[in-house]
């Protein structure tokens, strides 16, 4: 089978399956389970197909170039080590799917569960198969994300939400550190390719940046693998459905951390720093987890802490800087996955059949579910390290390593075997507690459900896993031997040491330690009986030391207290201080730039003053001053004055031969005036509270300060403009565009060719932003409630209505209808004319002033004009403008034109032009950019109309709405969405 097929299917299948499962109906429990099971099994088959290659020490590779210039490829790589993990992910995945089919209740949205599970499976496979470090970090974060969704699957319970949030916060933050670490590592090596990285161990270890890279990467690995002091998220994550725990918290998610450490072990381990960080974290986690696990009341909590402890054991082995310990670590990863997954499933069965996981309420289940009890007994014995089971083998290897560890610190060598024995004794004690508490003793009383054996297929995955524990435990070399050998060789290369996988090594010190641990564990459990029966949840002495509480305190500080303080210090609900802050920052930035680079006179001599333009400018400047002066107390007057200023600006553009700009400026001016007038109606009155009025001197000071800011900002802006305009511009881009506009863009209007062709991608982005802005404005206005002082009907309307009502021969609305008779006739006649101008501007835009944006504004002005004079009801009864559809079509057209280039084998957004021979018209220049421009046109029409109409519809709302025909109301709904 080709490599590419194997690797790509292993990654793509679960993600595709997740999408399909997500689309299934909510109650399609069996369909989703079949789908997920089939995908997990076919993944397993694909992984198996790669076995012949990797068993010979080969590596299956496939790379798809993505950004070769940056050294970023989508690269997949499977060696023996990755093969082992991929097999674990898909194999345990298949068992978990089968188990989950029976575990999940029919009331739960099961397809969603399988969708998340499959997506997680894909992300995890992505982590183990990544041949590129950046890609690995990406899939790493994906696993955090999907584990968040899986843990929070029962999002109606607070525990699930909090557990999911905590897991995401801790592991995703770790992932971010990992990403930074990977970048540093890539900087050291000069490549992100895993093969290159694995070949440059010497360079990495001797580099000055080794320690930062190590710490960052380890932060990622240790948070993911729930190592002390980041272990607290794992017990909280037990709020997940049990299949999730069996999968994520035994075989996959938490193993990602140790996978990464083992993957980078050949190049990063072997230093004192590695030994101290990894070894300390490992030994602390090993002891702490095992100790705390004894005192858990929740069976899943017990298993969670036991998992933490076993992960600590693996981490410690990795931290010992010895090749043999590395082999033991890989072996224990496998063993732990089998017995812990089966134990989680057994707890799930107990929970499912009895309704509780509380160890105090459970007892004597051996009689009601004997088969499950025996399975759990074997798995727990493997966890405790009883001989003839797989847990015993890796534990013996661990003891041997603890005895022979090499380090310069002698006292550690004495402590390590002691710690190993103690942790092992603890694990015997909690395994005993698990089995004895749940399955032995008197019959249980007042359980939520009557316990009985689960369905046979629900027990089947447990049976498979327990069988694996036994077979590996008895015949290690014949069963797991070749795979372990392959993985160890792939991870360690030529440095792989000789090791022996046998049950019996003769009478040795490790065997003695095992014996001591077993005896001490049993004795500890018997000795603790009294305390365990009465003690509350949690271990003695360490109860007040709670990582979770510290985490929560930190979160409260960061997301609440700190945020509040910052808001109090910097925030304001008034617009003026915010603007002041922005302007001050701008002034500062400009001042710094001037300070650094200087602002001297330019090289272009100013031309003489045109008296006419000067005259017009005096008027315009006066309008601008007036607008600023009146802005506070006479909003309408300020708005009118702004119109005058805008007009003068427009004339100025024409004067300096920029007809395109002038057209745009004029239309924007008109639309803005209407927009502001629409908003003006709903603005609250000035905040004028005499109680908070400040002393005269304070007010004066404030005004002086604001005046200074305003003058310096204005003067700075003017100086900047003067500085730019008195310099001859760099001739690079302008010349380029001028020279190529016709030959390559097919248009003589360079501005338009730049917009729709040379910089078409920018335009596409801009219109997307425009669409988003329009939608946001619409969404905000849907829930808009005006200020109390602007709710009432305007005075003019009340007067006119009163006048109409006072006369028997008139009905309400007659006055306004009379007054608007002439304008309404005129505007209706003008409507087609304006639309014609819009079409004209659009079509000729490529060669002469005009284009999609200007044409779109023109068309929307035509529509708004009808709204203004005819009224909302009149227009919407006659003219249907669905703005959302206009926007959607526009965006699709513009993006589609860009995509179409792909079908001709050209890069995205390449445009095409030629001359079409049309009947009557003759040779007509046509460019694909015109279609793009039509898209821009449609979007601008849609966006402008959507915003203005959403504002206008405020007047039709609520008590102000007048009764109208049902047809009209339907039309209005179509235009305005829902109201």
């Amino acid at each position, binding site marked *: 089978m080709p490599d590419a097929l194997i690797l790509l299917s292993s990654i793509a299948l679960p993600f595709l399956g997740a999408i399909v499962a997500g689309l299934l109906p909510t109650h399609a429990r069996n369909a989703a389970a079949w789908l997920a099971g089939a995908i997990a099994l076919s993944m397993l088959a694909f992984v198996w197909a790669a076995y012949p290659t990797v068993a010979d020490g080969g590596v299956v590779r496939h790379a798809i170039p993505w950004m070769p210039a940056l050294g970023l490829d989508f690269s997949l790589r499977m060696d023996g080590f990755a093969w082992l993990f991929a097999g674990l992910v898909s194999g345990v995945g298949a068992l978990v799917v089968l188990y989950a089919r029976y575990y999940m209740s029919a009331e739960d949205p099961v397809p969603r569960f399988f969708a998340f599970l499959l997506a997680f499976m894909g992300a995890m496979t992505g982590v183990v198969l990544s041949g590129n470090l950046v890609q690995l970090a990406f899939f790493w974060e994906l696993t955090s994300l999907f584990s968040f969704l899986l843990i929070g699957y029962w999002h109606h319970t607070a525990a699930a939400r909090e557990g999911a949030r905590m897991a995401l916060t801790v592991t995703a933050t770790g992932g971010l550190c990992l990403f930074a670490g990977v970048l540093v590592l890539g900087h050291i090596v000069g490549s992100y390719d895993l093969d290159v990285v694995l070949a440059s161990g010497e360079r990495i270890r001797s580099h000055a940046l080794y320690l930062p890279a190590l710490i960052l990467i380890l932060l990622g690995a240790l948070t993911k693998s729930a190592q002390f002091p980041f272990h607290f998220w794992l017990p909280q994550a037990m709020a997940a459905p049990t299949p999730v725990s069996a999968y994520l918290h035994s075989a996959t998610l938490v193993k990602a951390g140790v996978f990464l450490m083992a993957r980078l072990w050949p190049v990063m381990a072997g230093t004192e720093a590695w030994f101290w960080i990894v070894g300390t974290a490992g030994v602390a986690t090993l002891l702490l987890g095992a100790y705390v696990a004894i005192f858990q009341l929740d069976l899943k909590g017990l298993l969670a802490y036991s998992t933490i402890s076993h992960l600590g054991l693996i981490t410690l082995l990795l931290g010992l800087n010895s090749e043999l310990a590395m082999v033991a670590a890989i072996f224990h990863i496998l063993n732990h996955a089998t017995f812990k997954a089966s134990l989680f499933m057994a707890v799930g069965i107990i929970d499912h059949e009895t309704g509780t996981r509380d160890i105090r309420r459970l007892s004597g289940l051996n009689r009601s579910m004997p088969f499950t009890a025996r399975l759990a007994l074997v798995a727990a014995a493997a966890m405790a390290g009883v001989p003839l089971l797989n847990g015993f083998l890796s534990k013996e290897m661990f003891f041997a390593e603890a005895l022979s560890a090499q380090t310069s610190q002698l006292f550690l060598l004495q402590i390590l075997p002691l710690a190993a024995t103690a942790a092992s004794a603890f694990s015997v004690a909690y395994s005993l507690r698990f089995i004895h508490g749940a399955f032995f003793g008197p019959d249980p009383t007042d359980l939520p459900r009557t316990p009985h054996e689960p369905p046979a297929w629900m027990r089947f995955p447990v049976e498979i896993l327990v069988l694996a524990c036994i077979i590996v435990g008895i015949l290690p070399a014949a069963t797991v031997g070749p795979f372990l050998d392959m993985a160890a060789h792939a991870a360690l290369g030529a440095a792989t040491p000789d090791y022996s996988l046998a049950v019996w090594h003769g009478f040795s010190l490790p065997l003695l330690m095992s014996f001591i641990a077993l005896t001490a564990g049993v004795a500890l459990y018997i000795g603790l009986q009294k305390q365990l029966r009465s003690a509350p949840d949690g271990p003695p002495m360490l109860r007040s030391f709670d990582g979770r509480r510290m985490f929560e305190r930190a979160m409260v500080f960061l997301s609440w207290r700190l945020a509040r303080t910052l808001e109090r210090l910097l925030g304001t609900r008034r617009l003026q201080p915010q603007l002041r802050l922005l302007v001050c920052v701008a002034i500062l930035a400009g001042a710094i730039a001037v300070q650094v680079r200087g602002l001297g006179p330019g090289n272009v001599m100013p031309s003489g003053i045109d*008296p*006419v*333009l000067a*005259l*017009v400018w*005096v*008027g315009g400047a*006066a*309008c601008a001053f*007036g607008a600023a002066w009146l802005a506070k107390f006479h909003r*309408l*007057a300020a*708005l*009118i*004055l702004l*119109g*005058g200023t805008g*007009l*003068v600006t*427009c*004339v100025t553009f*024409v*004067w300096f*031969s920029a*007809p395109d700009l002038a*057209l745009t400026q*004029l*239309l924007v*001016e*008109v639309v803005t*005036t*209407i927009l502001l*007038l*629409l908003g*003006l*109606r709903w603005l609250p009155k000035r905040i004028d509270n005499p109680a908070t009025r400040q002393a005269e001197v304070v007010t004066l000071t404030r005004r002086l300060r604001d005046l200074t800011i305003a003058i310096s900002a204005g003067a700075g802006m003017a100086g900047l403009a003067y500085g730019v305009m008195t310099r001859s511009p760099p001739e690079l881009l302008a010349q380029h565009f001028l020279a190529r506009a016709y030959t390559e863009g097919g248009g003589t209007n360079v501005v338009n060719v730049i917009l729709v062709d040379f910089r078409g991608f920018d335009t596409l982005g801009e219109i997307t932003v425009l669409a988003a802005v329009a939608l946001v404005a619409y969404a905000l206005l849907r829930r808009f409630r005006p200020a109390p002082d602007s709710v009432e009907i*305007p*005075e*003019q*309307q009340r007067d006119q209505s009163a006048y109409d009502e006072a006369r028997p021969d008139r009905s309400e609305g007659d006055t306004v209808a009379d*007054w608007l008779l002439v*304008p309404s006739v005129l*505007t209706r006649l*003008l409507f087609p004319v*304006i639309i014609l*101008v819009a079409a004209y501007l659009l079509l000729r835009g490529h060669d*002469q*002033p005009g284009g999609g944006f200007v044409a779109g504004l*023109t068309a929307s*002005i035509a529509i*708004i*004009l009808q*709204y*203004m*004079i005819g009224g*909302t009801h009149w227009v919407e009864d006659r003219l249907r403008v669905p703005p959302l559809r206009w926007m959607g079509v526009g965006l699709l057209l513009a993006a589609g034109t860009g995509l179409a280039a792909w079908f001709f084998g050209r890069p995205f957004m390449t445009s095409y032009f030629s001359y079409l021979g049309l009947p009557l018209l003759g040779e007509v220049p046509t460019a694909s950019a015109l279609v793009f421009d039509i898209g821009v046109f449609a979007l601008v029409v849609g966006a402008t109309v959507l915003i*203005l109409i959403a504002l*206008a519809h405020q*007047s*039709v709302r609520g008590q102000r709405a007048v009764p109208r025909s049902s047809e009209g109301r339907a039309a209005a709904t179509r235009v305005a969405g829902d109201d």
Partner: protein
Amino acid sequence: MTAALLGWSILVAQLFLGLGMGCAAFRLMRGPRAQDRVLGLDTMYVNATMLLLTFGIRTGSTHYFEAALVIALLGFVATAALAKFLMRGEVIE
């Protein structure tokens, strides 16, 4: 001779139109009523249209004619909106 005459008359026309805009701007600022200001703005638009036409004659280009056309066609919309606002207190109802 004719060219010089045309040149001078265009300059004078532009100066007067500029003055006209100045007068409109004065009305815009002084008011006193809002209606006066709106009327001032409309006058300004009309003057600007003329100014652009004369500018087109001066440079002999037709591009400016179109800008003038658009002002003539759409400039009144702002005036209409302001008038409607003054009359009814709302632009669109």
